[in-house]
């Protein structure tokens, strides 16, 4: 068929004449039903159900459900979240609630004191994971979360949201390894920068010292 922009393809539905032979259409339909029924006993593509919970359909590696927070090594100190509240602002149904932890002088410790996600409100969109600049929040694949406590049971705090970097690696190997590599490179860069800074400070101090000594020597 040729492309014919803006010309109608008048293909009126070819209709079977009404009541060609009464019952023929019904019989045809019944044949289709019969074929489907018989094939559902032996043909794989017609057997569409699985006996959950004994059997489970495979889940796509991309499947997303609810968010979780990633920590490296230590669940408290290693938490990547800095309580910057970007996800809280971007969350479409506003189900994230964050309180920044501060020390006694009121200085920010750059980690969350409270990080709550109300799963009964969350709409699994994944925008929090998308906007997070600290690789901290990702979408989980866990889906068996039913509980008999309607409010508390679905309000996940830091204890239930934090999961290790290994868990992330197991869940989404591709994404996690990419993130790990990037973080490692960043850390190395940072370490190098810090080392350079220390070296520079040292050199500056020595230069100063030398200058002072020189000055002292002159006197």
């Amino acid at each position, binding site marked *: 068929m040729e492309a014919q922009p803006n010309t109608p393809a008048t293909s009126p539905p070819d*209709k079977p004449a009404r*009541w060609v032979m009464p019952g023929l259409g019904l019989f045809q339909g019944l044949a289709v039903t019969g074929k*489907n029924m018989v094939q559902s006993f032996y043909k794989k593509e017609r057997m569409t159900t699985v006996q959950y919970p004994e059997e489970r359909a495979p889940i796509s590696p*991309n499947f997303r459900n609810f968010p979780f927070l990633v920590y490296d090594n230590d669940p408290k100190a290693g938490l990547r979240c800095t309580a910057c509240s970007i996800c809280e602002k971007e969350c*479409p149904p506003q189900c994230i609630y964050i309180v920044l932890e501060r020390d006694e002088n009121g200085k920010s410790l750059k980690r969350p004191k409270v990080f709550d996600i109300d799963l009964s409100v969350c709409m699994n969109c994944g925008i929090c994971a998308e906007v997070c600049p600290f690789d901290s929040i990702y979408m989980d694949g866990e889906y068996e979360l039913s509980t008999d406590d309607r409010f508390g049971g679905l309000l996940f705090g830091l204890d239930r949201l934090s999961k290790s970097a290994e868990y992330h690696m197991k869940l989404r190997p591709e994404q996690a390894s990419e993130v790990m590599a990037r973080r490692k490179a960043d850390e190395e860069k940072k370490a190098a920068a810090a080392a350079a800074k220390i070296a520079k400070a040292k050199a500056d101090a020595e230069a100063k010292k030398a200058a002072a000594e020189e000055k002292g020597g002159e006197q």
Partner: protein
Amino acid sequence: MVSAPSTYSSAPILEGSDADQLLRVSLGPQHPSTHGVFRMNVVLDGETVVSLKPVFGYLHRNHEKIAEGVTYLSSMPYTDRLDYICPLSNNWAYASAVEKLAGIEVPERAEYMRVILAELTRLINHTAFMGFILGDMGAWGSALMYAFRERELILDLFEDLTGARMMANFMRFGGCRNDLPAGWAEKCSVLVDDYGPFLDEMEKFLVGNEILLARCQDVGQLPKETLINGGITGPMLRAAGVNYDIRKADPYGIYERFSFRIPLGDKGDCYDRIMIRFLEMRESLKILRQALDQLPDGDYVNPKIKIRNFKPPVGEAYARIEGPKGELGFHLISDGTVNPYRYRVRPPSFINLTLLEDMCLGLDLADVVIILGSIDIVLGEVDR
């Protein structure tokens, strides 16, 4: 003829003298044939419909007001929930409105991905429609199960790509959220090849069925001019023979590159509306085949668009696409801040209901159910 009563009670009420008794029936909101929480206040003279007033709002959540309070990106997952049978079309319509508003370019590969996803969505919608309309006719079971079996295969593809079967939240301003996973295009290609035989089977199952013919032919026609005047769009309009498909009439995306035809009906009755959808699915398969063959490499999203703190310039834009149900439009007004000043959805399901009463007057109550089914509404979009 009675005028529409101003207050409605749910119990059937007899009106008038014994000679011309009218029965007032509240059809819905919890009725399996109303496709959700939709209600029609029907006045019957015997079996004949004398008046029919649709009642909306049972699923109203003021989507437009919510969108005014959140960022542009945050509205994207809400659009999934408008017409929840075809979230990816809604995503595209919204994304293209923002792209028009901010003048964003979309890379080639993303355009192809969008076409593929939108046409798969059309397949899903029309396939599910076949099941639902048969359910409305009383054939609850087989047809719906066959339709949903095939729909599930497409939803599996969506899950592989977007992470969710239905609530995809996939399109982004200037492209898509992520690239196609390895092997996805091949899987999709297999599905496209297998879909034709399924359609053949489904057509055999339905098209010649005498019950379907008796119940659908010559039911619910209206003149072309009335349909256009009533704002009816999509398969409903084309079934009546009006050659108006936005993919051809006002091409968006890259639809101009594909060769496909617009099926037109001649009568515009419920039977034509069913057949049109079969033919549209076959055209969609053609588009899918071409798009999959031509799918280029490259960026899946415009890398210049920042995801946080996105602020389009001051102005307004209206963008529309040919959704599976009709013209789906988004009208956005931006005042230069992170939230839209005004966000309006032009919902095809809602506007296609405008002429419901005209179609039903003088017919039997049983025909009302078929006509409503043939309009193909989703209440998430009607009530917003």
